[in-house]
């Protein structure tokens, strides 16, 4: 039992209040009492109670009326009705409008213990349920997709529109752009949102395994098929099936999937019976399927079937205005997770992150912030915390045209910052003399921060 629970006893009879008060106090519960409904409501306004023990018959506001008010205003508070022997009908009625339990006076002390145990369990389950639901909502929330740039706003609008339909959607985008998040958002916004969302990465399975995963199999269909197993088409049962990396599947599989999409029927491997299936298909790829069709590697009929509607997610470098927003979002997320008090990124770092090409897109940015948060020792993330990004992906303005001078200036600036403006060391790395480096610093009007 949870002794932290707060109990309010509401009864017009002093002896009853006292008896219960003493019993609960002896159990170690935080207990208060009220002499009528009005008094109870006053106490409820000032203090949170987990359980109310309410006498049914009270002058003024009856226990029944109090129960109705409590169940409207304080949804989390459990109410146990106390009633005299012979008024079971009222107790049953009270249960119907939300009382957690009832006690017939006089009762055995162990009945109270049982009720407390039962309510404590219920509360524990409710808390756990809320926590898990919160976690699930976090995973599936539409607002998990972050971005206020125009291309992202268009995507939000598209999601809203396509969610209303049942048409297959092909989500296009480079790796790490958040294709699965968009798919989840479509599912959450759709009428199938109370049914499963089943993601499957086609690229992760060899052809034969993918077939058995999707279609399921009958006992004895192949070596090791020791029992009947449902495939994802059946598991999804009315929900949304998300096939990621659809460009990776073989032509043979494409034919099989095309048939399922057209007929909405499947046959398990090793079985002859057809099973009706109902699902919405969302698929995603980072490949250019049209050129794969030209090369004869992807079937055009299958492509047109899965590409009724397409959503293209722009790479992060094409929506630079979202980088700061995303960076702060991840900073907040990981500083909370690691319980480190890191609240900001300095201006230069933010600018650096904005200019970085992010070939791994949002996923790469998230990983970079996570790593920086974990390793940082100060409250502000600085360029030093992102040193690891440089060797593989030197900052360049991908997609922008830079002059040789601009590239030269940017590179010198990076080296100087990396070496805390140590001129000798920077000149060494750049392969020039200290005097030349000084001249270049002057020429480019660079200043030590």
């Amino acid at each position, binding site marked *: 039992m949870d002794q932290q629970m707060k109990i309010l006893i509401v009864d017009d009879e002093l002896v009853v209040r006292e*008896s219960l008060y003493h019993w609960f*106090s002896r159990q170690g519960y935080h207990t208060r009492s009220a002499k009528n409904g009005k008094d109870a409501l006053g106490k409820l306004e000032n203090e949170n109670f987990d359980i109310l023990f309410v006498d049914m018959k009270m002058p003024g506001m009856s226990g029944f009326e109090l129960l109705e008010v409590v169940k409207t205003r304080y949804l989390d508070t459990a109410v146990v009705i106390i009633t005299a022997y012979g008024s079971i009908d009222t107790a049953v009625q009270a249960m119907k409008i939300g009382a957690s339990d009832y006690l017939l006076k006089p009762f055995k*002390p162990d009945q109270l213990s049982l009720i407390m145990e039962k309510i404590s369990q219920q509360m524990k389950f409710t808390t756990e349920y809320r926590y898990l639901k919160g976690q699930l909502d976090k995973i599936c929330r539409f607002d998990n997709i972050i971005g206020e740039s125009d291309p992202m706003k268009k995507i939000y609008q598209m999601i809203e529109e396509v969610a209303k339909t049942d048409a297959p959607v092909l989500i296009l985008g480079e790796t790490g752009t958040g294709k699965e998040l968009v798919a989840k958002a479509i599912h959450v916004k759709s009428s199938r949102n109370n049914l499963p969302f089943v993601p499957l990465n086609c690229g992760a399975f060899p052809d034969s395994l993918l077939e058995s995963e999707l279609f399921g199999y009958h006992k004895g269909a192949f070596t090791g098929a020791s029992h009947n197993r449902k495939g994802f088409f059946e598991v999804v049962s009315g929900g949304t099936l998300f096939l990621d990396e659809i460009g990776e599947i073989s032509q043979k599989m494409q034919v099989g999937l095309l048939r399922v999409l057209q007929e909405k029927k499947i046959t398990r491997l090793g079985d002859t019976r057809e099973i009706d299936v109902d699902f919405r298909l969302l698929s995603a790829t980072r490949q250019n399927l049209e050129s794969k069709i030209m090369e004869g590697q992807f079937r055009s009929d299958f492509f047109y079937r899965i590409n009724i509607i397409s959503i293209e997610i722009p790479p992060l470098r094409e929506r630079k205005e979202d980088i700061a927003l995303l960076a702060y979002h991840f900073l907040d997320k990981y500083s909370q997770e690691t319980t480190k008090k890191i609240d900001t990124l300095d201006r230069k770092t933010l600018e650096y992150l904005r200019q970085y090409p992010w070939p791994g897109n949002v996923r790469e940015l998230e990983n970079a912030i996570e790593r920086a948060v974990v390793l940082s020792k100060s409250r502000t993330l600085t360029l030093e915390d992102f040193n690891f990004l440089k060797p593989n992906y030197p900052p360049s303005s991908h997609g922008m045209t830079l002059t040789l001078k601009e590239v030269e200036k940017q590179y010198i600036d990076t080296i100087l910052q990396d070496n805390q403006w140590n001129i000798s060391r920077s000149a060494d790395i750049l392969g020039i003399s200290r005097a030349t480096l000084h001249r270049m610093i002057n020429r480019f009007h660079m200043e030590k921060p």
Partner: protein
Amino acid sequence: MSHGFCLGILPVGEIEPLYLKIIAGSFLGELRTKSLILPPLPHPNYAFDKRRLQYNAGTMINELETHAFKGCSKVIALVEEDLFIPVFSFVLGEARMGGTTALVSLYRLQKNPTRAAKVALHEFGHLMNINHCHEKKCVMKFSKDIEQLDSISSIFCNYCLDQIRYAMKQKR
């Protein structure tokens, strides 16, 4: 250990002397507390509830607490009758947290003085402001009936014992 602390054991109505001696022995053994067996009080007719045919424990405690028992820091009163408090169908014993007098009913104990001693120690714990305990064997664990009473021991767990000793020091 508890020099200066004296427990009064009070028969209310006719009580077999064996119960009084065993309870006194239990307190001496468990808490090194000396006890004083008080002269009996008359049968508690004033607490009889005609509707329930039981004796109201609250009424009895109110009445007993009006008496001054010289030299006794706390009093355990024993009664042969079946006790109740308004919300419960019966109680084996009753005490108010921090009160001066606790009640032990022998009615449902089936003539077993060891059970009476357990109830007396338990109610004494309440008089010393100790809550119910969750230790399986501790005498402060709540027992709904004699089966549960039999499953607990006649001693306090270390935690409850420390609290009681501390409270008794303050009472001296």
